[in-house]
């Protein structure tokens, strides 16, 4: 039995703004289940004294001095924008009409 439900897949898809069909919900629930089960096996060897790892490189405090670097040329900034207006990124209406 899947440890991840169709509802959970639908919820995650909505958060990620992905359109998923009814059939795909079943497909992805199965696939995500395989992934989660595989990752869960890590828990079998990770004892309490082993801290969770977020980074494979044992480095801390990598900082840069507060000195200005180079910016993109204004034309380059907006070059890959789907739409631009007044040197700004133009984006569709944010709120639904009835909001």
């Amino acid at each position: 039995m899947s440890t991840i439900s169709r509802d959970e897949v639908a919820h995650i898809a909505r958060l990620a703004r992905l359109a998923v069909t009814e059939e795909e919900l079943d497909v992805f629930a199965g696939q995500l289940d395989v992934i989660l089960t595989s990752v869960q096996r890590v828990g079998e060897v990770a004892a309490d004294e082993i801290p969770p790892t977020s980074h494979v490189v044992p480095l801390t405090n990598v900082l840069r001095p507060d000195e200005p670097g180079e910016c993109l040329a204004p034309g380059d900034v907006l070059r890959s924008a789907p739409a631009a207006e007044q040197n700004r990124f133009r984006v569709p209406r944010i709120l639904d009409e009835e909001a």
Partner: protein
Amino acid sequence: MTVAHAPSYESAMSSYEPVIGLETHVELGTRTKMFCGCPTEFGAEPNTQICPVCLGLPGALPVANAAAIEATIRIGLALNCEIASWSRFARKNYFYPDMPKNFQTSQYDEPLCVNGYLDVVLDGETVRVEIERVHLEEDTGKSLHVGGSTGRIHGATHSLVDYNRAGIPLVEIVTKPVAGAGANAPQVAKAYVTELRDVIRALGVSDVRMEQGSMRCDVNTSLNRPGAQWGTRTETKNVNSLRSVERAVHSEIIRQAGLLDAGERIIQETRHFHEDTGQTTSGRSKEEATDYRYFPEPDLVPLAPDAAWVESLKATIPEPPSVRIRRLQEAWGLTDHEMSSIVNAGAVELITATVESGATVEAARKWWLGELARRANAQDVELEQLSITPAHVAELQALVDAGRINDKLARQALEGVLAGEGSPEQVVAARGLEVVSDSGALGAAVDAAIADNPDIAAKIRDGKLAAAGALVGAVMKSTKGQADAKTVRELILSKLS
């Protein structure tokens, strides 16, 4: 929705106890952004302070700004926090056009500073506001909403985004819930934000200007019956001045009390504060409950401030503003009441600077708490927002002390300075306000007054010197208040002796 009857504040306070909480965002004054070298200048042309890192382009690698980390640790130390020996950044995932990356780099369960407090003084009483956490994140871009009637997001057809601000280091300071303040809750909220602003300004890490948005405040408010569990809270956003912090808590208490009185429930929601009406309105939209799916930021390595670093930063923490207030009160020789009027008027820095510019404490207080406070109040702005500097006030007083203008003319000069006509000296010159004490120039006016008032002149000739006042008044009137009263009096007496 039914509109509940709004009770008076007093009646709300007789039935309920408020609990407040404050989340304050402070934009740091670093030269560059949090994770890249883009400059942070305010007011630059749109989208000119942008690079692949702040746009979140594929392959870009963020690196944390050392000055921002230090500033955050210093804020934590000034707020009596514990500095974490291990801290990480996290991704806060959401889709909204104010961040081009579709996530904001923030901190989640491992903030840099935790468990602090800030003591604030309210009417001579110290109130301790406990700090839950101080963490570091990045600011978002600025949106311009087009097509709506008022430039608001509601009714807009589309929006235009400028990402210059996206990525500027932003410190978030979160209090623990503040209970037990009772009817003083609005003033405690304002006093806390004021003190926090002063602490951060003293650290020199931000210009903390609420009107420019470099300090922003969200206010949580809930009400409960005495002895009962805390009520459902609302979060009021868009509170952009110290006065508004107080007004937002005040109006939210009244609104919630009205709903509770009517037997209705408080909905946990975000509300927006409106400066013009002093009211809050619901910010509810049809969005789902937030689910940010925080996870440790894989492109940044953890922070592990060692004890020696923290100690060296501790040595840079200035005198706490509340301690400084005590010291100033002593130095200025003021009573508790006099000092708290200065504090409540938000005039400590202004008076300090005015005294530093050469005025006496007495003169500085007279101007800032008198004429200027009256004008600020009439315009509904803070004293420091008036277009006059402490140096101007000191200069104005120096002109009075030198006898070049009198109090009445000084008020006219003040008006000119506030209207942007220049320094007091310049306004006096341009408006021709200087007192006329030259006896030659005044002689004609005195002669005219004597000729116009033969009865009074006769009395003075008979030795009734008190009558001279009426003639002085006549001369002042004919010279539009610009005559030096002392010289006029001497002239009258010598002419009639």
